[in-house]
């Protein structure tokens, strides 16, 4: 029986009606209690639109809604579904509505205590829930670990051993690919840089401990404290600035741009109407930009509708234009709206030019009307679009952009737009593998661990505790980052001691 409680997203990556996040291990119930609040326990119920199809599948739902147990002391009946919310214990914010079930071992898939949360089938939702579980005591599961535990605990027969091994092999190979893929990014470069600084610090600590008689500068508490806090600040910044972390926390800033009357407002409205859980409704400071915040499949998105950014001689209008330009520049995602019934105008061309090299989704609106496959240049010359299609024309100008055909009027194509936005947030490429997610969430959990250890080390330094004790926390941070880059090796520090210092005793 394992000592650790592991958590992972159990459903396949991508779009689905529901998603399952699963935990296994002795503390599965403990962690569940920390993050799950059954309905009727202090939080107001929003109504019947909780989870699609939940009422039909879960007969215990009504009971749990009526009960008024507090989170934390909540004692679920084994193998019964409960309806409630995933709530972040740090600030009480609601992450998602969901169903939860607790299955004590040995009658569970792994033979250990298992807890499962069924949430909305959105990548962001799974991820947030998983991240919360990790923050509250669970550890990210290794590839194939649930199955491995099931086998080791006698929940699978001998004939299945082969399959378990294949699974471990395949998943570890895949997650390795994926880790390597991610390691090419900025995040990993920065982690390597931070880790190098930690190695440097550990080397100094080691040489101070192991070579007290050598002619080496003493690592004072002042210097040690400074270096720890500088490194920790970098990590905190890193976590905050990593696109995914920031988007999860603050939401994505998307600007809806387009020339007048192209259907921006109706698009905004249809997006807002579609989602009933509008968090805020903040009108912009002027009529020229309006910011709305919605939650799309768990991703908070701040839409800015811009009035227009075409250069104008009119002074009053130009103020609005400046603001729109600002929104355009700040946006992390551009939703560039074209009117497909009119073709591409000179103004559209100008906007597309500005959107070059920016993350963008081009929306060919008014798809309910017949398309005009023409391009109208600034001098009024009309030509046919490339290969006779607006899509191809757009693709030629903005090769990196996603293109969505949509009718804001009928709502046709909206699902496709939402998919495109989610794809953008979750890394651009849809890979139907949960490993991609696990790796990501693992990374953030490991960065968090490193931050926690360094914060400890910082406090201990402040209290002038023994340096060899502080070293333990610094090393734990170093090892956590090493798990991300796959470089944890105990010999590194000693190698570095001999490389950097001239030692003779």
């Amino acid at each position: 029986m394992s000592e650790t409680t592991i958590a992972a997203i159990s459903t396949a990556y991508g779009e689905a009606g529901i998603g399952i996040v699963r935990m296994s291990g002795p503390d599965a119930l403990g962690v569940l209690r920390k993050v799950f609040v059954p309905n009727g326990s202090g939080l107001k119920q929003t109504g019947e639109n909780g989870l699609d199809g939940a009422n039909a599948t879960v007969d215990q739902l009504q009971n749990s809604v009526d009960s008024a147990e507090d989170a934390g002391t909540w004692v679920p009946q084994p193998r019964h579904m409960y309806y409630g919310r995933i709530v972040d214990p740090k600030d009480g914010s609601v992450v998602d509505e969901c169903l939860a079930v607790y299955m004590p071992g040995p009658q569970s898939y792994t033979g250990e205590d298992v807890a499962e949360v069924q949430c909305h089938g959105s990548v962001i939702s799974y991820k947030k829930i998983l991240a919360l579980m990790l923050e509250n005591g669970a550890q990210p599961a290794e590839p194939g670990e649930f199955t491995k535990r099931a086998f080791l605990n006698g929940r699978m027969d001998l004939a299945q051993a082969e399959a378990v091994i294949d699974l471990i092999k395949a998943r570890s190979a895949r997650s390795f690919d994926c880790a390597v893929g991610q390691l090419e990014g900025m995040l990993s470069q920065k982690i390597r840089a931070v880790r190098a600084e930690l190695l440097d610090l550990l080397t100094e600590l080691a040489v101070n401990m192991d070579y007290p008689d050598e002619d080496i500068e003493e690592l004072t508490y002042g210097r040690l404290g400074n270096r720890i806090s500088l490194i920790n600040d970098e990590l905190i910044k890193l976590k905050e600035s990593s696109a995914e972390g920031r988007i999860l926390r603050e939401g994505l800033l998307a600007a809806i741009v387009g020339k007048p009357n192209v259907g921006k407002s109706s698009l905004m409205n249809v997006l807002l109407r579609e989602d009933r859980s509008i968090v805020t409704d903040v009108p912009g400071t002027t009529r020229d930009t309006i910011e709305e915040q919605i939650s799309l499949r768990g991703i908070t998105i701040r839409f800015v509708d811009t009035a227009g950014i075409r250069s104008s001689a009119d002074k009053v209008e130009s103020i609005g234009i400046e603001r729109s330009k600002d929104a355009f520049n700040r946006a992390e995602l551009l939703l560039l709206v074209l009117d497909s019934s009119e073709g591409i105008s000179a103004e559209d061309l100008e906007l597309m030019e500005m959107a070059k090299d920016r993350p963008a989704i081009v929306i060919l609106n008014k798809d309910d009307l017949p398309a005009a496959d023409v391009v109208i240049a600034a001098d009024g010359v009309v030509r046919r679009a490339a290969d006779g299609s607006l899509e191809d024309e757009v693709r030629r100008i903005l090769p990196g952009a996603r293109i969505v055909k949509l009718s804001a009027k009928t709502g046709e194509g909206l699902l496709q737009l939402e998919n495109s936005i989610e794809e953008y947030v979750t890394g651009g490429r849809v890979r139907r593998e949960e490993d991609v997610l696990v790796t990501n969430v693992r990374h953030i959990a490991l960065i968090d661990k490193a931050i926690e250890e360094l914060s400890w080390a910082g406090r201990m330094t402040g209290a002038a505790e023994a340096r060899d004790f502080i070293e333990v926390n610094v090393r734990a941070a170093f090892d956590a980052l090493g798990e991300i880059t796959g470089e944890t090796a105990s010999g590194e520090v000693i190698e570095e001691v001999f490389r950097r210092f001239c030692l003779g005793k």
Partner: protein
Amino acid sequence: MEKYTLGKYDVVVIGAGHAGCEAALACARMGKETLLLSINLEAVANMFCNPAVGGTGKGHLVREIDALGGEMGLNIDKTFIQSRMLNVSKGPAVHSLRAQADKRRYHEEMKKVLESQEHLLLKQGEAVDIDLAEDGSVRGVLLRTGAYYECRAAVIATGTFLGGKIFIGESVVESGPNGLAPSTILAEALKNKGFRMRRFKTGTPARCLASSLDFSKMQVQEGDPHPVPFSFMNDNIDKEQAKCWLTYTNEETHRIIRANFGRSALFGGQIEGVGPRYCPSIESKLDRFPDKERHQLFVEPEGLSTQEMYLQGMSTSLPEDVQQEFYKTIPGLGNIRLMRAAYAIEYDCIDPMDLKLSLEHKQHPGFFCAGQFNGSSGYEEAAAQGLIAGINAALYLDGREPFVLDRSEAYIGVLIDDLVTKGTNEPYRMMTSRAEYRLVLRQDNADLRLTEKGRAVGLVSDERWERFLADRKAMEEEVQRLEISTVSPSEVNPLIESLGGTPVDNRISLSELLRRPEITYDALAAVDPERPQLSYHVRTKVEVGLKYRGYIEKQLAQIEKFKKLEGQTIPEDIDYMSMEGLRNEAREKLSDIRPVSVGQASRISGVSPADINVLLVQLERRRRKQS
């Protein structure tokens, strides 16, 4: 030459250096008839390099050897001439004792102990072959004279004698350390038997005449006012102490050395062995750290009855004229007269990955190995392995389970696991940073960790055992007393304020007070009139145990996790080559090293976490198939 049988022993120990002495004593004390061979009896427990025992990590090893019933701690306590506790400004886990020894006396005292040990014969003789039976097991040892000793176990601890070659400048001589005869025939015999031999290198600085030095130009380094004993059997060992001295090289020194790089054996290419990076020669220091303006040089007495001084930090393979010339540029050394030139020495050793954790050779039952022969460096590292090899040779003869300490139990465990599981590419030196459970593996609690284990294998004497039980009881009682004794704010606040701490508002227990960084056990005496008289060892244990309880407990929790994987044993007959799912590299490494537990397997380089998962599943599969 005529071969003749000269006797029959349970164990023959080859080499009477620091490893061989501990091995032979352990065997004899465990009741085995033991023969200890040395190529020259002058070499017994000789300190061929620095005249000191202990230091960071190494001091821990000495305490552990002592706690298990070994001799090194007792012997240095008898013969030290200066002692210092290093790292006292740092935490208790890295406090390290280091003592300067009187080399001659260290050798003499150890020889006396060997001579008076029951079941042990110390004998001069050069082993030239180890007789192995068809199954690879040990059945005898042959001497150069043709004398043959039957034995069922052997401990090989040949140090730098095996295939020894000394380099001084351009001169290369086949020699053991300090001009003693090398062991060349045995080196050949082992190679011919198929042992995988390697070549390592080490070096020692020059010795000079004390009267030729001007100590007024150097900084003095005194011993601690109250020296702390190494052995848990000793309490108060105050004695008059010798002085050591510190001086530095300068630009002129460096210029001379650089100008003669070409004459160094090291750079000339004559030396093929791999040297240790932590103890580089002065030419390597200059080569690798060209910007460092000066290098320190400790001048240490080799003993009280000699004028020979040891020049710590200045080992070199430069010819003697260059040595003489560059030493003269160093303050205090202007008229230096060298008595022994510095030299580099190359020797044969095995790849320790061929050994089990018991230090028995994987292919040769009864063949135990220790010290530099295993690729380590240092007297303490050698003694620690000698002790374990000796214990295991005795256990082997009785058909008992081997004695293995793991990484969470002792520095000795870290040392042997590192050597056997990870191997080493240079002479291996112990460092506190190698021990992941350092906060628990302190030198102050080595007896609490190990004396019971030493008693169980039969090495701890009645006297030591009784003393240990009494110390442990005294410690527990004192901890309890400190926990229940309280003082009022008016009693204790003046003390706290005088030490710069924050005053208390309510009554507080003495143990609580002790947890404050500014308050030591000694300082607490001012408000604790009822405290009992306790020995140094007991006081230290009480103080460290209470003061750092939180951290220690956290580490104990980590150890528990570690123990789980160590406890998952791997059957000896497991076939990795046909094991589905392992990557090829892992298959080869696992087959080669044959780890005894899943924990050990996980530390082998080239074995990934996924391989470990596959291994776990395969082990379970095998278990179920068999049941």
